């Protein structure tokens, strides 16, 4: 086994673990192929199980013979291990470094993980595109499933099955694919049952500097418009960026060729700008100097909340155009795999009550992120502590989750899931025993045979014992469109993620417990009352029967 070569010292005794808010623990440190384990010898009370893939960066320090390793995790946790013996410490450090940066995906833990639970429902088949389409097909016949991408030949980052206008043939789709970045031709993202309007998404049109056009593309998106109606094209890039893109063969839809469409440019940042923002924010949150002013200016300098505001504003704009103005919408940025997906999925959270349920939200992640080809493998390769700073690393998905949290905070009773559900998704996107977030698109996942070789996250989450942890006790189905506020006063730092390891949550947890108690007590009472009412009713009819003869 190759892991054995990487593990120079599998076991060290008398290692001391330091974590904020916990007393130091002394125990034995073990390294396995995928885990770093610390167990104190007393009845295994204190244990640390850490996936190597969760480790973002490590620092070493030596004071005499005592070595210290500081482990910084992708979930922003920082822990410290004091290891006696310089050699052991160096060995451990280099092993961790090697094991946390494995090149081959097939060596990752999901390929070795054997679940200890019974699979009630195989998550790989929980959200099939055909089933999702059935939800729409009852309401409209204007759309169809297309299998044009069956072999991933037309668009490598699309799933084999997509939803397109019924009027457009597969042949036309191929032509449109050639005109759109990465072959990402416009497909249906969301159908608004209330008025039959839709959100579509795509890659940028490849107009180039000479203003190339594509009749099929125009026909495709016009097919979604009602007679005499106009639609909106939301370009997530500012105008100047879109113009610059033309030099590289990209571009945007010219008014002349798309007269029925109004184009709006927004400016949602991408790539390293977001990554740098995250790095600065996490740095500020970990700052232990207790100076009020520096904290606020650092928070401001990170620009994180500015990004949140921009994304939410765009999503609200889309929802507003769709719901209030009754217009169809096409959204794209450059590739259509990042900011585009943030906007389409948040707009659905705002508009569609189903996406605020646990299952509906899972379906949304599956449809708008996994199948839509958000490159999780690249984007979530590293987190806030790593120095590698590759262009493709970017907390796009975390920003999306943060936006959902902001809406959840404003509408605490409208979501079936709670904050823990979002935190769980964040953790598994960066390091997981499940195969769900591996790979960059469906094509890669197919090649890796994830369905056969790994377990789906949904298989685990959708068991009642897990679901209970993620259910919001305040939830009451709300069929309304929910309009969040995007004013700076209404947006907050997501403490549950960014200050998670730096605060004691005891009092907040107690409050949460109290809340659950109040609601459960109410439900129990309701059940009892119902039983008594029924008993009474039975007795009364019995009475009546006895009396009537």
């Amino acid at each position, binding site marked *: 086994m190759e892991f054995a070569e990487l593990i120079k010292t599998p076991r060290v005794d008398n290692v001391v673990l330091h974590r904020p808010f916990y007393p130091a623990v002394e125990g034995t440190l073990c390294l396995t192929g995928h885990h770093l384990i610390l167990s104190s010898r007393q009845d295994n009370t204190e244990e640390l199980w850490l996936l190597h893939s969760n480790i973002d960066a490590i620092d070493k320090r030596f004071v005499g013979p005592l070595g210290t390793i500081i482990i910084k995790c992708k979930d922003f946790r920082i822990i410290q291990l004091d290891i006696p013996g310089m050699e052991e410490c160096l060995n451990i450090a280099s092993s961790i470094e090697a094991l946390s940066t494995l090149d081959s995906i097939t060596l990752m833990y999901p390929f070795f993980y054997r679940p200890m639970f019974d699979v009630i429902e195989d998550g790989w088949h929980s959200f099939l595109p055909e089933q999702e389409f059935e939800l729409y097909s009852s309401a409209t016949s204007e759309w169809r499933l297309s299998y044009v991408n069956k072999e991933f030949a037309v668009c490598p980052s699309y799933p084999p099955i997509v939803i397109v206008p019924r009027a457009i043939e597969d042949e036309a789709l191929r032509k449109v694919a050639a005109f759109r970045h990465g072959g990402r031709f416009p497909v249906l993202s969301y159908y608004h049952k209330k008025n039959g309007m839709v959100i579509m998404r795509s890659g940028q049109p490849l107009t180039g500097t000479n203003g190339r056009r594509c009749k099929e593309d125009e026909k495709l998106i016009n097919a979604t418009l009602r007679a005499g109606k106009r639609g909106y094209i939301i370009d997530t890039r500012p105008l100047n960026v879109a113009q610059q893109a033309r030099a590289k063969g990209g571009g945007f839809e010219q008014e002349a060729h798309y007269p029925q469409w109004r184009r709006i440019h927004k400016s949602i940042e991408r790539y390293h700008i977001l990554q740098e923002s995250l790095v600065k924010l996490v740095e500020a949150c970990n700052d232990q100097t207790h100076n009020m002013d520096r904290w*606020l200016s650092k928070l401001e300098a990170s620009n994180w909340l500015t990004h949140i*505001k921009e994304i939410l504003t765009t999503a609200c704009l889309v929802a507003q155009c769709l719901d209030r103005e009754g217009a169809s919408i096409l959204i794209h940025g450059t590739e259509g795999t990042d900011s585009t997906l943030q906007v389409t999925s948040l707009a659905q959270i705002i508009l569609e009550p189903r996406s605020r349920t646990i299952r509906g939200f899972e379906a949304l992640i599956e449809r708008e992120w996994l199948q839509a080809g958000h490159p999780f493998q690249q984007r979530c390769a590293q987190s806030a502590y790593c120095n590698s700073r590759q262009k493709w690393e970017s907390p796009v998905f975390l920003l999306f989750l943060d936006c959902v949290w902001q809406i959840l905070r404003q509408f605490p009773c409208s979501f079936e899931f709670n904050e823990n559900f979002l935190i769980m998704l964040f953790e598994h996107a960066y390091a997981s025993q499940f195969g769900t977030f591996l790979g960059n698109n469906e094509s890669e996942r197919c090649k890796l045979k994830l369905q056969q070789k790994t377990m789906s996250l949904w298989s685990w989450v959708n068991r009642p014992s897990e679901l209970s942890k993620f259910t919001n006790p305040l939830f009451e189905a709300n069929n309304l469109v*929910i309009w969040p*506020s995007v004013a700076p006063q*209404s947006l907050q*730092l997501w403490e549950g993620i960014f200050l998670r390891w730096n605060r004691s949550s005891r009092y907040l947890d107690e409050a949460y417990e109290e809340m659950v108690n109040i609601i459960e007590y109410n439900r129990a009472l*309701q059940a009892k009352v119902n039983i008594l009412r029924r008993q009474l009713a039975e007795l009364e009819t019995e009475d009546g029967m006895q009396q009537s003869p």
Partner: protein
Amino acid sequence: ILHSQISTIEKQATTATGCPLLIRCKNFQLLQLIIPQERDCHDVYLSLVRLARPVKYEELYCFSFNPKLDKEEREQGWMLIDLGEEYKRMGLPNNYWQLSDVNRDYRVCDSYPADLYVPRSATAHIIVGSSKFRSRRRFPALSYYYRENHASICRSSQPLSGFSARCLEDEQMLQAIRKANPGSDFIYVVDTRPKLNAMANRAAGKGYENEDNYSNIKFQFIGIENIHVMRNMCELKSPSMSDFLWGLENSGWLRHIKAILDAGIFIAKAVSEEGASVLVHCSDGWDRTAQVCSVASLLLDPHYRTLKGFMVLIEKDWISFGHKFNHRYGNLDGDPKEISPVIDQFIECVWQLMEQFPCAFEFNERFLIHIQNHIYSCQFGNFLCNSQKERQELKIQERTHSSWAHLWKNRAEYLNPLFRADHSQTRGALRLPTAPCSFTHKYVVLWALAQFWSGMYNRFEKGLQPRQSVTDYLMAVKEESQQLEEELAALGERLEKIQKVQLNRTEVKSNKQSEPRKHSGFSASDSSTANTPQDYTGNVKSFPSRSPSQGDEDSALILTQDNLKSSDPDLSANSDQESGVEDLSCRSPSGGERAPSEDSSKDRDSDEAVFLTA
């Protein structure tokens, strides 16, 4: 809008539609009136300017406000909060502390209350001597007595020490305070000013205590700066994120709040952990001292975290000890430099603590907001004038109403659903001072402080508020639970009754079956009494009459949900983004909706009674 709420009025350039008038209110409301005629506008402007700056107390609203209560009720309202009772609750007077009459008729200090607690060993001579050595004669007096270890929090103003002056009586006074606490051989003297300010004051013949002159004191500066306001930034129109954070930081407001909290925590720990008494002062001892003393008391004593206790706290540390409400909140036209949101800061400190300890407070955010509102509104007499003496001269209690009674009457609205008297966060000393794990990590406070209290400062921009209130939701759930409990009891009783009756009847029947052969003559009358038809018909009758009411309740409950949904059209009718607010408002009607169902359950109870008596 009450005239007293108006902070500034601004006439803006005339436009085509008319003449705009911009009104900024003290409760952070901002509104613009457009008046078609310029002349009218000018008239309105002039009268508002005059009305917003009353010169005499008699012009204030509270002197004409009449909530239709008779004299007795009004007097009861004023008696709701009784400071004498409060000192008794603390365990006073006792062997160490006594009620002093030295300030009767405000002879010694006109900004202090008449009734004050001082150490038993402090004679009138010492007190008067000490008062002469203190700014505005505000001598050290008791603010809070911590029963468990005899430590106390006292307050005063700065000593007139200058560079070298000393006063024997004042030194004896501090000595007396120390001796009143047998558990500790020193006292803390906390000067809440930054050291620089205190030193500058020495040149003016004032200053701070010299540790050489006073035996056994530990002197401590806690730098709470002078007060500058953040009002401007609340008005920013659709600011960008960085404008907002930048403004928040530059206002220095949060830094201020943190300084106050830190000082309060320091004192609470000194008292509860070190068992040492603390003397707190700033310059005059009526602003920062009041803030710090009340935060410390709040941390130490769970009583102050209840609705009534919080009223008592404000009555004690702010109203009775001469916080200058009139000057600070500009009730009457006065020096604008005197105006400062001192108590607003205290209220925000409380809110920050509530955020940290969600189960520890009996009241909710709305309570704080309404108190703040009353402080500025002058609708009630509590927050008038600068001292108890002035209030007495004006006969406030006879001529106005008390806001405490008003708040107490509506207390159901202010309850925190998460508060439970037996919860660990509420029992004893909140565990805050005794096990201050959360506060040794100061940054915990720091983080929470970064959260801007938009519930207060943006309360009139409903679009910025969370659209669904967890508090209201939980209150509704709790209320429903209570009803269910009642119903459960009623149902249980009825069930028991019916079962008993049935049991009787089956017994009777079995009797009947055996009896007829023996006493066939009796059977008719027997069965008639045993079966008691009236009873049954009564029973049968009461069922139909009852089941609709039961049905009613069901439908009422369903209705509330319908209500939720039915607000949909409302919502979609609105075309702006803020329409989500509707959602919030649909919550409160749903709470109200339950009231009739409660009635129906009561009806049923009375039904029940009929049934039982029948």
